[in-house]
């Protein structure tokens, strides 16, 4: 039996089907959480944002129009707006922490993975978080959606409400800025090796 698509789930949700709501949440929670996590750098902010996204969907707070695009992209757009709003309300962007205690702040528990590989991935993720925190949020948007979620230029343009040319240029500038921001961590890795 094929899985119902997002629109079928939405229709069922409007008729009060809790299972459909749960399915839709579970389908999209990981991508949205990962995006919010890397964007904000704070797991608790990411969790709040994901909750707000689905709470808004539940309360019909958003004017989602299936004729204008996919629900997934729409939800990424809402997530992006909420992350940006949260940062504005807190009047600062999450800054990279200098202490070493916060190394695992972003690393979700994956006990089944091979320990060394997991350790390296967690380290890469932490370096990425610190480097991303140094970038402008507008470059961060495009970078995370392209590099982490592997979305197309068109999809990113739709999510961020940008022209495709702007997406390309932000991606190019973002990559250059990220490379510079990652350089210190890479040197550390080289010295340790």
């Amino acid at each position, binding site marked *: 039996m094929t899985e119902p698509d997002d629109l079928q789930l939405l229709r069922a949700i409007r008729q*009060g089907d*809790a299972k459909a*709501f*749960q399915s839709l*949440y*579970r389908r999209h*929670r*990981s991508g949205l*959480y*990962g995006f919010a*996590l*890397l964007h904000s750098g704070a797991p608790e902010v*990411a*969790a709040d944002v*994901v*909750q707000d996204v*689905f*709470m808004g969907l*539940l*309360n019909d707070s958003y004017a989602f129009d299936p004729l204008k695009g996919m629900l997934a992209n729409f939800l990424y757009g809402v997530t992006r707006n909420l992350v940006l709003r949260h940062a504005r309300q807190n009047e600062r962007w999450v800054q990279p922490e200098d202490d070493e205690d916060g190394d695992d702040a*972003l*690393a*979700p528990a*994956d006990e089944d*993975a091979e320990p060394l590989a*997991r350790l*390296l*991935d*967690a*380290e*890469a*993720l932490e*370096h*990425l978080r610190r*480097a991303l925190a140094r970038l402008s949020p507008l470059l961060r948007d495009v970078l995370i959606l392209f*590099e*982490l979620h592997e979305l197309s230029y068109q999809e990113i343009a739709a999510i961020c409400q940008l022209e495709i040319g702007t997406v390309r240029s932000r991606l190019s500038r973002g*990559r250059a800025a*990220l*490379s510079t921001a*990652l*350089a210190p961590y*890479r*040197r550390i*890795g*080289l010295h340790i*090796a």
Partner: protein
Amino acid sequence: MQPKAPNDHRKDGRAPEWAGARRLLADAAPPDGVEAALLQAFARRHAKQPWYRRWTLEALAPWAGIGAAGFALALALAGGLRAPPPQAPVAAADGFLALAPADRIAAAVNPHLRRADLPRQELVRMGIPIAADAPDELVHAELLVAATGEPLAVRLAVN
């Protein structure tokens, strides 16, 4: 072949750190409490309500419309069976209040204007909405009178 420096990017321009991030975040999810809170909110929103609470304004509106239309129709039918009540004066142009049916006013030949001081009591009897507290007080009025002498409309002069 030269060993790859750690800060080299792959040919596609993607920093290698992203691969680790993707692996680690593939199954990342908010804490279970988020899902629980959402499902609770869903249950509250879609909770079954007693029948009398299900009669929301939106649900009642069409029935209320139908009821109102039926009531109006019943009134019209009942009115049609009775003799027409005395007509209240109808506001006309230039501040005149009609004293005769509109078709008779329109059909009147050579109507003329007459000024007169009429007792307040008389004006009330004609259906003019004024206070009758001083019945004998004279009120200056202008009357539109048909050639037959029938008063067609009246206008009170502003004192």
